[in-house]
């Protein structure tokens, strides 16, 4: 079972071949994953082991938490591929783009499925390499500068991470990820070294997860084409960092060990600072994509907050936000891309009255925005509710205040966009597309945001059904917190 290694490096120029291969690849992968999800649900474990160096195996391991991330990336990949095909129509270098796009998704899948730190680092660095060509795809001076900054941040982070991982192996020897924590039981005697290592690793992962003050690359990287930004923010890079921290806490250190060392609170405080700071910065942006970037910084920190707070409820909130934020943010980026591509709108001040010209796009945007704010019954509400109750349950009421403030800030920067779009007169009449198009924009640009917006609604409404991410996460958290605590997990 190695779907992650199915790399489609397409170099040919035929549009049809490439498109078919792309979509087929995405679909095949989805089918494979669906089969694996069923298996994991029944408690089966898939594992591939492949010795790379003496003592270090490449381990791919599918259990509940990885599957969550894999499903997310596979579904959103399919949708983004469709979007990208429409978005990049008639622009040069498409073969290169989709080639690296596929490598990027393979790396993400590899990150998701990695069964030990060695494998994780390997795919984590591969992801950096695969995303650089996507970031600089436009080839302008600005794009190249952004690429340089992006590399400076992520490569430094990656190197620090690698050193930390090697150091950890030197301290405790090779080990695999384990539900419940691989280090938890045996290594009481290395407390100090492991505490330092924890912070070093969180900081290096925090570069990709864009924890303040390590977030500098993210707003700059916004020069990338919209599908790239969408993927970067929703599943690939930022999430890889957040996911890494999640695995570090649950599967390497183990939640009890983290609590024992008193690391969780620090993590939660760091996340809170990020949430508030990034929301404030988002408030003062005029460029739509930059605003979304800062919003990502703050939203991803929710995941870390949930993990840091500890306790089953907060964990559910944090991990489920991994999925919810991905779907919501990808919707918003698709919409921003549509506005830019169809009408040339890049700034928030230009969005007056745009809803009349592009009603479907703006409807999707509104759903995404409301979800971000946490309006019931959308997906964002579910994660915020879990986080909130979790914060109260784990005795950190200050986190409730953080959540409240950030929700208010979210509203403050998202609602004006929605308001302008619907209720203000346009500055001048919108240009009509000269071609006789039946829809407000190209169909392959329009469908993806609408579909993901529907996901946002569905995930909120049907949160308690068996197949929702929430139930999956509860299943997962129940496995992480054994014993009596699991009762609390099953709300």
């Amino acid at each position, binding site marked *: 079972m190695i779907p992650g290694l199915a790399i489609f490096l397409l170099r040919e120029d035929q549009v049809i071949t490439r498109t078919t291969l792309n979509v087929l690849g995405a679909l095949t992968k989805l089918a494979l994953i669906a089969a694996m999800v069923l298996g994991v649900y029944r408690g089966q474990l898939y594992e591939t082991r492949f010795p790379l*160096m003496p003592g270090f195996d490449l381990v791919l391991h599918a259990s509940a938490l990885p599957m969550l991330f894999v499903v997310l990336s596979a579904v959103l990949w399919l949708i983004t591929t469709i979007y990208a095909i429409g978005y990049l129509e008639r622009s040069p270098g498409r073969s290169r783009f989709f080639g690296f796009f596929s490598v990027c998704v393979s790396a993400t899948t590899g990150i998701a499925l990695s069964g030990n730190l060695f494998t994780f680092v390997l795919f984590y660095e591969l992801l950096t390499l695969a995303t650089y*060509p996507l970031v600089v795809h436009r*080839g302008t001076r600005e794009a190249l500068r952004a690429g340089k900054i992006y590399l400076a941040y992520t490569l430094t982070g990656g190197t620090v991470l690698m050193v930390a991982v090697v150091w950890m192996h030197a301290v405790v020897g090779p080990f695999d990820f384990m539900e419940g924590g691989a280090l938890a039981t045996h290594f009481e005697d290395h407390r100090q070294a492991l505490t330092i290592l924890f912070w070093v690793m969180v900081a290096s992962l925090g570069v990709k997860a864009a924890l303040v003050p390590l977030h500098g690359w993210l707003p700059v990287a916004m020069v990338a084409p919209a599908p790239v930004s969408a993927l970067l923010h929703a599943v690939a890079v930022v999430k890889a960092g957040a996911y890494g921290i999640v695995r570090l806490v649950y599967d390497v250190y183990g939640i009890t060990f983290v609590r024992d060392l008193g690391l969780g609170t620090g993590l939660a405080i760091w996340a809170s600072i990020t949430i508030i700071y990034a929301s404030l910065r988002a408030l003062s942006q005029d460029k739509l994509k930059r605003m979304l970037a800062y919003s990502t910084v703050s939203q991803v920190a929710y995941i870390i907050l949930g993990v840091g707070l500890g306790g089953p409820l907060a964990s559910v909130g944090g991990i489920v936000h991994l999925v919810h934020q991905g779907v919501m943010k990808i919707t918003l980026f698709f919409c921003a891309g549509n506005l830019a591509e169809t009408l040339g709108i890049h700034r928030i001040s230009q969005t007056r009255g745009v809803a009349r010209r592009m009603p479907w796009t703006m409807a999707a945007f509104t759903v995404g925005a409301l979800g971000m704010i946490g309006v019931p019954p959308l997906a964002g509400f579910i994660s915020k509710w879990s986080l909130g109750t979790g914060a109260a349950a784990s005795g950190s009421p200050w986190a409730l205040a953080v959540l409240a403030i950030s929700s208010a800030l979210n509203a403050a920067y998202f609602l004006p966009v929605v308001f302008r779009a619907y209720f203000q007169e346009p500055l001048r009449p919108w240009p009509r597309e000269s071609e006789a198009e039946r829809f407000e924009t190209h169909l392959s640009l329009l469908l993806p945001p609408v579909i993901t917006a529907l996901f946002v609604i569905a995930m909120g409404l049907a949160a308690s059904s068996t197949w929702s991410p929430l139930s999956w996460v509860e299943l997962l958290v129940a496995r992480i917190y054994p014993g009596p605590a699991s009762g609390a997990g099953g709300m």
Partner: protein
Amino acid sequence: MSSLPLISAAIWVPLLGALFVSLWPRRYAALWGMGAALVSATSALGLVVAVAVAGPRRERLGGWGAPAGIELWVDGLSALMIAMTAVVGLVISVYAVAYFRAADGAADSERREIDLRREAYFWRIWLVVWAAINAVFASADLFNLYVTLEVVGLGAVALVALAGGRALPAAMRYLFVTLSGSLLYLLGVVLIYSEGGTLALFQAGEMLVVGALSQAALVVMVVGLALKTALFPLHFWLPPAHADAPAPVSALLSALVIKVTFYILVRLWVVVFPPEVSQPVGEILMILGLVAVIWGSWRALRQERLKMLVAYSTVAQVGYLFLVFGLGPRADGSAGWQAGAYFAISHACAKGAMFLAAGAIARAVGHDQIEEMRGVGAQLALPFFAFGLGGISLMGLPPSGGYVSKWLFITSAAATGDVIVVVAVALGGLLAAAYVFRVLALAFERAPREGAPPLRPIPSTLGWAALALGAVAVALGLAAGAPLALLEVGLPFGQSLAEGVTP
């Protein structure tokens, strides 16, 4: 199978090839040269497989054994080095066929005559150098090492001089360096002989006594070989020599020739000199290596010519090689040595790919000024991709041989507590990323090329050959098991990794 003289064949086949190239008229040089390269690579790989399957091999030339006769000995380390030479040598040969033929189109007959002569010389010298490199790796005798080393050095100088023009002063300097390096080495051999009365590599160690004489022997040999390997601060000759040579020559100098002297040093360390003598020198070499990593990378970052950048990167990478003389003896088992050997082969593939790619790019653009290459990426995607693959290995990013060796380095440095090595290796990787991406950014930039002459067409073989080596560099990161297992054959470093590091 064990009765076949496989080791001698690895040396004789390229020599015979050189002979054939010389015997036939010049216009057949490429044909015979390529044929000889194919047969040489095949026979060398046959030797490697035989060693991997049946263990180390020994051959006595003319039936005389050590200490009087010439003895050839191939264990895992030698086999790995011979395999590296075969793979890189074969790709360079393919590249060279296209590289030297591309000048065929020259209109006037005098120019064409010069090109033909240059091609013929290249094949003759290159095949001799190939034979000599294999001979170094197979020699079990200090004096024999000297002779073969001298052949490699002189051949390399002649190859640099092939480029003519500004390469001539560089070749001259290189000549002095390689001659004095060999002489210093010879002086060391004489000292060892006067002390122990033997030249056999594996017997000299038992005869040597710890003392001033053996210390002196070690120091002169180390200075001579470090000079030839271009260890900081003795690297001054390398960048011009490697950058101004024709592209296939640059590739084989950086990939193979400097590894020869490194290999001899490793042998001296492991089997000849007792640790009491070599330990302090090893510490100094490690520190010089650390400085080289940082200094070479920094200089590479500041270069304006593409091939100079790649050449300075070699200075930096040589620094990594010399880390093993500090780490190797200290690390558990053979982890440190293995890191060095693995680094040597992955650097050979990566740097070979980069020099070949740089040569292809320079030929298409007509110069190798980095600043004036903006906007050429779209037409030269293949060589840039090859450059990138090699670059990944230099940066030590996965999946690549460079990543595996970096991991091994950091692991053994962490185990011995050499924090400064960890920091330098990490920093060196980042600096490598800085200079590699400085070039790769060119490939992605879409700048108008106003006033610039149009690109010259280049044979696609140039790009594909570079890509092939780049692919090998990446493959070394995905299948590290087999080469590392080969390194265990005959236990060249004493204790095995399997017993040493992994619990």
